[in-house]
């Protein structure tokens, strides 16, 4: 019996590692931008191309930057959560319409509701690259000093909002 103990232990360790691998979402890549200033950009607004928006405009406020697009399927899943969040008014959300047509973006918001205080158009995705966007939707929590405090990759769920994003926003707002 004793001679099986060692292989069994080794096997258990291997199973442990594999189980950890299964539990881990490989799409969740830690962002190097956390704790760093949000990359500056100035982009035209979706609903009024003559007006611009810059990151510095939000200085002194805790806010969310939500990267979305009308072509993005998971954004559809996320959208009702954002609409609900906008109703509570607990945190301002700026939309970054990523690699999208202005007309499509506008139509999408008209149909599904507009949770954003404003959206900006990143038509060639250049700002997206600066933010390390690789899978829309993505959401950044940015503090009063303009530092990125958190990045959420993939659609926000009511659970992730209640358990991680909103508590962080509350903490940062104090």
């Amino acid at each position, binding site marked *: 019996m004793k001679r099986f103990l060692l292989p069994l232990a080794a096997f258990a360790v291997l199973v442990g590692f594999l189980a950890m691998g299964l539990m881990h979402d490989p799409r969740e890549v830690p962002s*190097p931008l956390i704790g760093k200033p949000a990359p500056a950009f100035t982009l035209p607004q979706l609903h009024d191309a003559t007006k611009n928006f810059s990151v510095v405009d939000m200085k002194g406020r805790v806010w969310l930057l939500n990267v979305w697009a009308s072509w993005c399927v998971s954004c559809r899943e996320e959208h009702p959560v954002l609409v609900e969040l906008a109703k509570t008014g607990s945190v301002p959300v700026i939309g970054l319409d990523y690699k999208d047509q202005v007309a499509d973006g506008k139509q999408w918001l008209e149909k599904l509701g507009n949770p954003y205080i404003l959206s900006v158009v990143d038509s060639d995705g250049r700002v997206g*690259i600066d933010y390390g966007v690789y899978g829309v939707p993505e959401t950044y929590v940015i503090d009063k000093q303009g530092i990125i405090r958190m990045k959420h990759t993939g659609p926000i769920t009511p659970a992730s909002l209640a358990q991680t994003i909103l508590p962080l926003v509350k903490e940062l707002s104090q």
Partner: protein
Amino acid sequence: MKRWPGYLFIVLATSMVFAADAPPLAADEIVEKRMVAISEELRCLVCQNESLAASRADLANDLRREIRKMIVQGKTDREILDFMVARYGDFVLYRPPVKSTTWLLWGGPFILLVVGLGTLVFFLRRRNRNMSMPALSEEQRRRAAALLDQSDT
């Protein structure tokens, strides 16, 4: 045979269309080669098992465009890789740098090798110990010699 000029026109016209589309290759070739060399070092984050050079994802296209732009601007390879790491983290590098968070990644195989060799040596030694017979006593040696003599005759 009357139609010849017509065919000729069509052939010439299409070749002219292509000529208008093709980018100036001679100037771009060096840039393109460097771009491919750099993007082979980078992982595409959309389809994580493909390099940036091989990926057809939209983001990979954009990033290749950015790399091309930076090469034209005269950035070094190091600067371009740093640009990518600053945005997407060490994960984009197929050869991540050796530092405190990656030493297990780099050292892991060697640790496993040492553990494996140690185990092998341990078991081989134990087996040798079990196999080595106790030396014959003087009495046993005499008896063995006697038996061998007997069989000779």
